[in-house]
């Protein structure tokens, strides 16, 4: 018996099954951790996937958790589609949150009809500003954007810490949080007795905007051409640098909106823990969604479910909620692997039958019908 690996695309009926297989594989891999925490994996899966949907309150909570994820997922998708690796959505989210916390206090006397749009624009601009330096360094001096965006994520946390321990420290409570934003700047609720807010609608709108830009505008075409290959795009007459900067700025702006939503819809203050890594989770979502608008939407909702589920597992079974982070990251890696492996098939060949001299190990061979 020999194992031969051939390149051959998975049949069409299997494609929708691949994400499901990835989820199952991830849960099998992470079961060991559940056992280490002295809990039953099957019970843990129940709390991960089913329990959050079994009551109105927690089902809405899934949407609440999905709100910033929709926005950071779309933000990352914009940048990655143009081949610009913006890992700075986390920092840009904080930039938007800072702007919202400031405007939310300053705009006290205005009507919500003016205050809320101004907050959204302010947060978008703040995210763009924070995204600008890495984008300029990328196109002007060819400095890798991955490094600069990551470093700036650390820098903005120091700015937040400065604001909260210094000028913005809450004068009433003395806690390291900014003064509460005014009622006119608060996002309205979508449902009674739940904290689902306007931000969720904005998240859905950005998904539609993403779809529109990708499929109905020349800019979307330029972005994706740049993402597929800068040289070819340049040859086709696309202003690659301009496209990259625009994609980076839009990405930063949308990430900034996520920060506005968390301040104006959930916390009503700026706090240093306003994001438990939503910016990084946005990368997971963009990749799970295959940089496709509908895929990104589904991925954001699913990760929202897993995040809510992780808290449920933690409450019910005493398993540390960090299990949720591990599951998300594993799911990303397993899915990445599955996307590659779906292009291969494994054949068992008996020793005598058709055995060309093998080069051993992992050799790839194009099947005749393959390409």
């Amino acid at each position: 018996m020999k194992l031969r690996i051939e390149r051959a695309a998975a049949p069409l009926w299997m494609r929708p099954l691949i994400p499901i297989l990835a989820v199952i594989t991830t849960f099998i891999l992470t079961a060991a951790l559940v056992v280490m925490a002295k809990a039953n994996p099957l019970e843990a899966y129940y709390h991960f996937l089913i329990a959050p949907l079994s009551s109105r309150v927690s089902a809405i909570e899934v949407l609440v958790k999905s709100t910033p994820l929709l926005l950071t997922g779309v933000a990352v998708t914009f940048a990655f589609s143009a081949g610009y690796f913006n890992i700075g959505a986390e920092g840009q989210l904080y930039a938007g949150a800072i702007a919202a916390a400031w405007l939310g206090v300053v705009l006290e006397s205005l009507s919500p009809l003016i205050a809320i749009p101004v907050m959204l624009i302010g947060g978008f601009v703040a995210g763009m500003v924070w995204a600008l330096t890495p984008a300029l360094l990328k196109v002007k001096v060819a400095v890798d954007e991955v490094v600069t965006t990551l470093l700036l994520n650390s820098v903005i946390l120091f700015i937040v810490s400065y604001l909260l321990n210094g000028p913005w420290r809450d004068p009433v409570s003395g806690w390291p949080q900014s003064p509460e934003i005014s009622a006119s700047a608060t996002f309205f609720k979508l449902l009674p007795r739940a904290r689902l807010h306007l931000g969720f609608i904005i998240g859905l709108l950005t998904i539609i905007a993403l779809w529109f830009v990708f499929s109905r505008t020349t800019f979307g075409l330029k972005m994706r051409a740049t993402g597929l290959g800068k040289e070819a795009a340049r040859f086709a007459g696309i202003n690659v640098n301009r496209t990259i900067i625009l994609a980076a700025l839009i990405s930063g702006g949308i990430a900034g909106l996520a920060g506005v939503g968390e301040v104006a819809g959930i916390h009503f203050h700026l706090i240093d823990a306003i994001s438990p890594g939503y910016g990084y989770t946005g990368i997971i979502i963009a990749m799970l969604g295959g940089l496709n608008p509908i895929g990104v939407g589904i991925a954001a909702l699913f990760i929202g479910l897993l995040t809510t589920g992780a808290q449920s597992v933690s409450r019910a079974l005493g398993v540390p909620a960090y299990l949720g982070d591990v599951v998300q990251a594993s799911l990303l890696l397993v899915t990445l692997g599955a996307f590659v492996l779906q292009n291969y098939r494994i054949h068992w060949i008996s020793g005598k039958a058709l055995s060309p001299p093998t080069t051993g190990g992992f050799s790839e061979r194009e099947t005749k019908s393959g390409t």
Partner: protein
Amino acid sequence: MDDFIIGLVAATLRVATPLLLATLGELYAERAGILNLGIEGTMFVGAFVGFVVADKTFSLGVGLAAAIIAGVLSGMLMALLSVWLGVSQHVSGLGITLLLTGLSLFGFRLVYGEPRIPPAIQPFERLSPAGQVPVLGAILDQYALTYIALALVPVVWLMMYRSNIGLQIRAVGENPEAADAAGVNVFRIRFLALSIAGGLMAAGGAFLSLAQLGSFTYGIIAGRGWVCIALVIFGNWHPVKVLWGALLFGGVFALQLRLQVSGLDLPYETFLALPYLVTILALAVAGRNATYPGALLKPYKRE
């Protein structure tokens, strides 16, 4: 004033140690053509595994060894994804950082619960080869790992430029097709380079928990891995230049710690952010002259 400078030099060497170890690791990976963004998570897992094993076995040496093993395994996972499966290096590296960070935090909660005061161990003793000699005594009062990290610079240089395996690592990072044609197993060499890289990164993380701090906190790495990625570029993928980069960054970091208590009328966060801003500035200056390994970020496929 002299005391100030002596203290600064000694602190620079101390702060530079984890950076130097992890940057030399990243150098191996990138010279072989793989950008390993798993570095931040690998340092984190090194700090965690080193701490928890040292705490439970009462042996710092065993803790360090366990950290290095965890790092090598992390490097192998990166190799599985980026070398054999050919997944995007950016995404697989970040995914590994997220995974290892999550795993470490999960493990920490499992072992220690939610303690009010972070658990602590008795860290490594410092060596004082120069004893009480003025100036030198204070500067050379360093952990063994600092000396090891410094000694690794010529070792890495020799291996990279004077050994067959180093030639193969550089070849698969520069032109894997040609290396393959010359009979080098590209996959195996990249696997090896990533394994070494992971071990060094984890050792850098373990230095923080086992020597410098003697404890493990959630913010123990705090972006140091990303600084190391920048240092590799700044050092133009050369072990000796990387050493200067690590010392420069270590110097800025040690200086900001002293400026914080110097009574300058600036918020202390300004000083904390300074090393990161200096790194970005250094990249902007050095960026133009950076000559990236030819095959960096390009997965190799045999056709």
